[in-house]
C-alpha cells in the first residue's frame, strides 16, 4: 500500500515534469498569411535585404549542389546526424510563402518555425538573434520578393531523442541567449558595425569557434578555431597561427577578394563566404575587418621572409612558365616537394597565377593537418563562380598515403618550424573518403 502510493506520487511528479517541459517547449503557431496578400514589395527594402542575405550566407546552406538558390535540400552532416536545409523561397506549400513578417523574424531570432516547431541550431539563430528589427524586416522583404519554387527537402536523419523537436527547447535554455546587438559607445561606428555583422548575420563564430559535446559554441573560447564540413576554420585573433599576423588591411582584402598575397586563398566553406562578400557593400566588409583586427594578433614570428612584391624594379614573371626547381633534399618528403610542388610554389608568380610560398601558408602552420591534407589530396578546383582564384591540381591520385605523410611532415618542419601534427594519417584517410 505504502509502496503503491510512493509509486503513484513519483508518477504524478514525473507526469507534471513532462507536462511542464512540454509547456515550456510549446511555442504557438503564427497564423498563415494569404500568399500574395502582402501587395507590392518595397523594392528598396528588398534590395537591402538581398545584401544582408549575402552577409548572412543564406544561399550557401539553403541551396543544394546544382540547385536553385534558396530552395534548400543541402545535406549538412553534423556529429548528431544529417540535417537538410529548407526551402526559403516564398512558395506557399514547400517554402515560406504563408509566413508573416512576424513568423519570419521569430524563426530568425528564436529558431521557431511558423507552425511553432523548434528549429535545429544548424540554423545559426544563436547568432541571428542579434539582428536588428530593421535588418530582419529587410531580409523578409527580400525573401518574399524572389520567385517561389516548389521544392521539399528530404527529412532529417537524426536518432531519437534528437528527432523530437521539443528537446531543442532544452538546448535553447542552456545555450541560446536572446539579445539584440548593443553598440559599445567607447568604440567607433565602423567597429560597432563590424561586430554587429561578425557576431550576428555573418555568424563567423559558427565555424571559427570550438563547440561543446552538445554542439553549442564554447563562449569561453570564441574564435579559437573550429571545424566546418571537413575543413579546419582557423583560429582568429590572438590564437591565429598565421605566419604573418593579420591586420585590418589584409583582412579587408582577403574577405573582399578571396585571397591575399601573404596569406593565401579561401578554401572549403570559406570560399562561399568570400564569394558572397565580394558582392556586398565594401564598407560592410571593411567594418568586419576592423572588428576582426581588434581581436588581436597571433604570436609574432621573425623567421618568415615575405617575398618581394612584384612591381617596378623586379623582373616580370611569365604566367605559365615553370620555375627552376631546387635541388633534391635527401628527405623523402623534401624530394617530393622539390620535384612536384616547388615549380609553382617557388615560382614567385603572384596569386592567382602562382602558388603561395609555403612559409606564408596557414595550412602548413595551422592547428590541425586537415586543410593541408585536403589541399594536397584534392587540389583547388577551378572556381565555377567566375571570380579569378588560384587553382591547384590535386595529388591524391599521384601520391600514396606514405608519400603524402612524408610530404606533410617535411612541409610542417621546413616551412612552419613546428612540431608534427597528431592524426595526419587519419586526415589523409578522411580527405580520400570525402573527395
Amino acid at each position, binding site marked *: 500500500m505504502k509502496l503503491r502510493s510512493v509509486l503513484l506520487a513519483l508518477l504524478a511528479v514525473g507526469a507534471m515534469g513532462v507536462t511542464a517541459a512540454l509547456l515550456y517547449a510549446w511555442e504557438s503557431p503564427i497564423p498563415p498569411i494569404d500568399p500574395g496578400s502582402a501587395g507590392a514589395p518595397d523594392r528598396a527594402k528588398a534590395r537591402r535585404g538581398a545584401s544582408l542575405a549575402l552577409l548572412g550566407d543564406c544561399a550557401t546552406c539553403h541551396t543544394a549542389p546544382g540547385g536553385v538558390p534558396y530552395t534548400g535540400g543541402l545535406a549538412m552532416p553534423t556529429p548528431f546526424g544529417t540535417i537538410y536545409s529548407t526551402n526559403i523561397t516564398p512558395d506557399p506549400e514547400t517554402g515560406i510563402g504563408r509566413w508573416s513578417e512576424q513568423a519570419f523574424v521569430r524563426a530568425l531570432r528564436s529558431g521557431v518555425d511558423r507552425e511553432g516547431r523548434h528549429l535545429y541550431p544548424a540554423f545559426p539563430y544563436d547568432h541571428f538573434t542579434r539582428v536588428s528589427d530593421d535588418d530582419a524586416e529587410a531580409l523578409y522583404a527580400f525573401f518574399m520578393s524572389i520567385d517561389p519554387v516548389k521544392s521539399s527537402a528530404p527529412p532529417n536523419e537524426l536518432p531519437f531523442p534528437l528527432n523530437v523537436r521539443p528537446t531543442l527547447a532544452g538546448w535553447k535554455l542552456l545555450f541560446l541567449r536572446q539579445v539584440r546587438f548593443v553598440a559599445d559607445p567607447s568604440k567607433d561606428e565602423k567597429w560597432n558595425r563590424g561586430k554587429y555583422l561578425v557576431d550576428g548575420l555573418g555568424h563567423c563564430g559558427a565555424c571559427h569557434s570550438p563547440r561543446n559535446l552538445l554542439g553549442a559554441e564554447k563562449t569561453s573560447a570564441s574564435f579559437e578555431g573550429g571545424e566546418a564540413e571537413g575543413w579546419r576554420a582557423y583560429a582568429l585573433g590572438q590564437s591565429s597561427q598565421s605566419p604573418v599576423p593579420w591586420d585590418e588591411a589584409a583582412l579587408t582584402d582577403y574577405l573582399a577578394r578571396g585571397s591575399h598575397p601573404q596569406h593565401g586563398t579561401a578554401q572549403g566553406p570559406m570560399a562561399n563566404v568570400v564569394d558572397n562578400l565580394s558582392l556586398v557593400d565594401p564598407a560592410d566588409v571593411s567594418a568586419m575587418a576592423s572588428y576582426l583586427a581588434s581581436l588581436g594578433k597571433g604570436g609574432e614570428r621573425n623567421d618568415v621572409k615575405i617575398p618581394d612584391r612584384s612591381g617596378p624594379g623586379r623582373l616580370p614573371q611569365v604566367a605559365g*612558365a615553370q620555375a627552376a626547381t631546387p635541388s633534391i633534399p635527401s628527405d623523402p618528403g623534401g624530394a*617530393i616537394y*622539390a*620535384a612536384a610542388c616547388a615549380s*609553382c610554389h617557388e615560382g614567385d608568380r603572384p596569386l592567382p597565377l602562382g602558388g603561395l610560398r609555403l612559409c606564408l601558408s596557414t595550412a602548413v602552420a595551422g592547428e590541425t593537418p586537415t586543410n593541408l591534407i585536403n589541399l594536397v589530396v584534392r587540389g583547388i578546383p*577551378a572556381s565555377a563562380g567566375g571570380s579569378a582564384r588560384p587553382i591547384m591540381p590535386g595529388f591524391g591520385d*599521384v601520391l600514396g598515403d606514405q608519400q603524402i605523410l612524408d610530404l606533410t611532415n617535411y612541409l610542417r618542419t621546413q616551412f612552419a618550424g613546428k612540431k608534427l601534427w597528431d592524426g595526419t594519417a587519419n586526415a589523409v584517410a578522411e580527405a580520400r573518403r570525402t573527395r
Partner: protein
Amino acid sequence: MITLTVNGESRSIKASPDTPLLYVLRDELGLNAAKYGCGLGQCGACTVIVDGKAIFSCITPVMVLEGRTITTLEGLGNPDAPGPMQRAFIAEQAAQCGYCIPGMMMRAQALLNRNPHASDEAIRSELQPHLCRCGTHMRILRAIRRAADEMRPKTANARSER
C-alpha cells in the same frame, strides 16, 4: 635507376628521379602522345592513366611512380589497330588542332573504365580540367558517347536484338 611499368612493359629509366613523367615519356621512351601544354597541371594536355586514375604527367616526378601501372594513349591502340576510344574520335572527326585530344581521350578512358554508363553530365564534369580553345567540343562529347557504346559489354544489346 627507376623502373616504370608503361603500357604493360617494364622500362628502366635513365632520367633523374625528379624528372616529370611527361619528359620521360616523350624524350626517353619516345611516347609522344601526351603533350606539354602549361607544365603546371592546369590544362590537361599531358594526361595519362596511373593505376586507373587520370593524372597530369607534367607535374608528376617519376620517383613517385615506381611499382605503379602507367597507361598512355599509345597503350589504347596504334594506327593499325586503334582502340575503341581512338576509333570513336576518328569516326566523329573530333580533333581540330588535336593538341589537347590525347589528354581528353585518356581522362575519358579512365572515366569509362570506372563507369561504363557515365551520363553526359558526368562526362562534361569529368573533362572539366581540360582546356581546349578550338571548335570541336560537341564532337568530343559525341566521340566519348560512341566509345562508351562500343566499350560496353555487348550481351545486353545482343539479347535485345535477337
